């Protein structure tokens, strides 16, 4: 009887586990099925390196949007990484208990705010501010990446804080015992030991930045052009899909799925890089797995 139960539960768990894989495979299959015809009929290279996106004239080049997505993401990482790493170090090593009790929930709340709220805040406050300070329309790559910076801060902070905290205590004790100051210990021992986790944190933040849609639509300006400076409006790949999916038919519809394929490939590349660094820089001395 117990054997029968055991069997049932084991298989049940197996089915639930395999279900999520099936769902992902279905999604991938569907995106490629809908997207590939557009790439084939328009030409793979034309599609990726085409500068002109105007569905009404049958032009489907997404290069400007690839540049847009990459530009927005890199710029927001440039702001977010130093900020969040310093914040994580502060939280993990320096902050007193009471302060941590306030800071942690506040940072977690940032992650819980819906992206449309960020977008609306950007449209009402940040866009006019950027227009007055830097001229132009205020809708720009910089505006979008500033909003994204705030959105990816909590992700990078909490994961890299966990990484710093999971460095074995012996490392810190040994370093302090050798006469190193607290800052020297953080800089030379804790931080290098936590590097794999921190890289994972950054890549996850990057993934969120690439995938963010609504907030970016509201502040980036959505112009399909290669930006001359960070003050020019751009369109991201995700925005392109969300903007036009409601109306698209025929080849246009397939081209939007093909945009999804490009996005999918970009995210897969990010994940592969993340896993590579995670295993390569793993520290296994002293019984600690990081």
């Amino acid at each position, binding site marked *: 009887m117990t054997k029968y139960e055991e069997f049932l539960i084991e298989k049940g768990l197996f089915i639930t586990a395999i279900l999520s894989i099936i769902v992902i495979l279905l999604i991938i299959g569907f995106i490629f099925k809908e997207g590939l015809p557009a790439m084939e009929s328009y030409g793979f290279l034309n599609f990726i390196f085409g500068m002109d996106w105007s569905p009404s004239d049958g032009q489907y080049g997404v290069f400007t949007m690839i540049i847009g997505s990459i530009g927005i993401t890199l710029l927001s990482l440039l702001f977010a990484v130093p900020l969040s790493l310093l914040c994580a170090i502060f939280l993990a090593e320096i902050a007193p208990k009471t302060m941590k009790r306030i800071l942690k929930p506040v940072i977690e709340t940032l992650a819980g705010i819906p992206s449309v709220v960020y977008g609306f805040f950007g449209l009402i406050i940040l866009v006019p501010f950027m227009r007055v300070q830097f001229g132009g329309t205020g809708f720009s790559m910089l505006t979008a990446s500033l909003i994204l910076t705030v959105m990816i801060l909590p992700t990078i902070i909490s994961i890299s804080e966990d990484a710093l905290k999971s460095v074995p205590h012996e490392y810190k004790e040994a370093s302090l015992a050798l006469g190193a100051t607290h800052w020297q210990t953080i800089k030379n021992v804790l931080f290098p030991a936590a590097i794999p986790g921190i890289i994972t944190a950054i890549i996850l933040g990057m993934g969120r930045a690439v995938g963010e849609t609504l907030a970016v639509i509201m502040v980036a300006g959505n112009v*399909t052009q290669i930006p001359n400076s960070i003050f020019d409006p751009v369109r991201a790949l995700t925005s392109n899909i969300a903007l036009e999916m409601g109306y698209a038919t025929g080849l246009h519809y397939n081209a939007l799925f093909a945009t999804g394929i490009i996005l999918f490939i970009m995210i897969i590349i990010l994940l592969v890089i993340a896993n590579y660094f995670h295993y390569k820089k793993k520290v296994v001395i002293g019984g600690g797995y990081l």
Partner: protein
Amino acid sequence: MDLKYKLGILIAIIIIIAYLTFIPSTNYERIQIAGSTSVQPVAEKLAEKFEETHPNIRINVQGGGSSLGISSVSQGITDIGTSSRELTAKEKVGLNEYIIGKEGIVIAVNNQNSINELTNAQLRDIFSGKITSWKEVGGPDLEIHVITRESGSGTRSAFENLIMGDTKIRPDAIVQSSTESVKQAVRQDPGAIGFVSLARMSSDVKALKIDGVAPSEEAVFDGSYSLQTPFIFVVKGEPQGIVKEFIDFTLSPEGQAIVKEEKVVPVR
């Protein structure tokens, strides 16, 4: 043993839920409506009121754009197609049109802008990028920031048909994804110009006179305000049965009152 009872209850619940999900529904008569996203809110409201008095009828309203609405009705996929633009001669073949209302398109600028009036031609030159400063149309020495909607939007295609003709909207115009965000963008930028539907107009932005006529429901109704587009129900052949009933309801005083409530200018 306890676990087995729990498992039994769980399986029973799953079976009941599955049964309820797939239970054959009562036989409703159905009307499928698809097409312009601008017409969608009005059509939904009309459908809602119509269902109240006809409990056996279910009306399903979908978006997709005017072109999709027209092509799907001529292929017989939907019963009624909706369009927020005039049909081309080629599209009209075999189809019956019922104009249910008219919508005005308002050219909106910032409240601080001293310009009150533009001509049709000036508007085309501004949106195509030929005129780049407000100074060229008699305003302040300020760069013009053109705000437009995404391609496919009903308001944008109506604007393109009415004003742009064969010229294109300048490629570096800022694209906003809704009427509301166009208004927000115009509201906070003294140099901005954009177009919104009359139904969504508010005092946040300033409406321009076009060729001397200010946009209003009266001016749209009597045709003196030129920037207007019809809301059309398209049916293949002669409407029959419940489809005819629904269209009659739409054109009745009661239906037209609903159209007016949705801030669309009624035709009767």
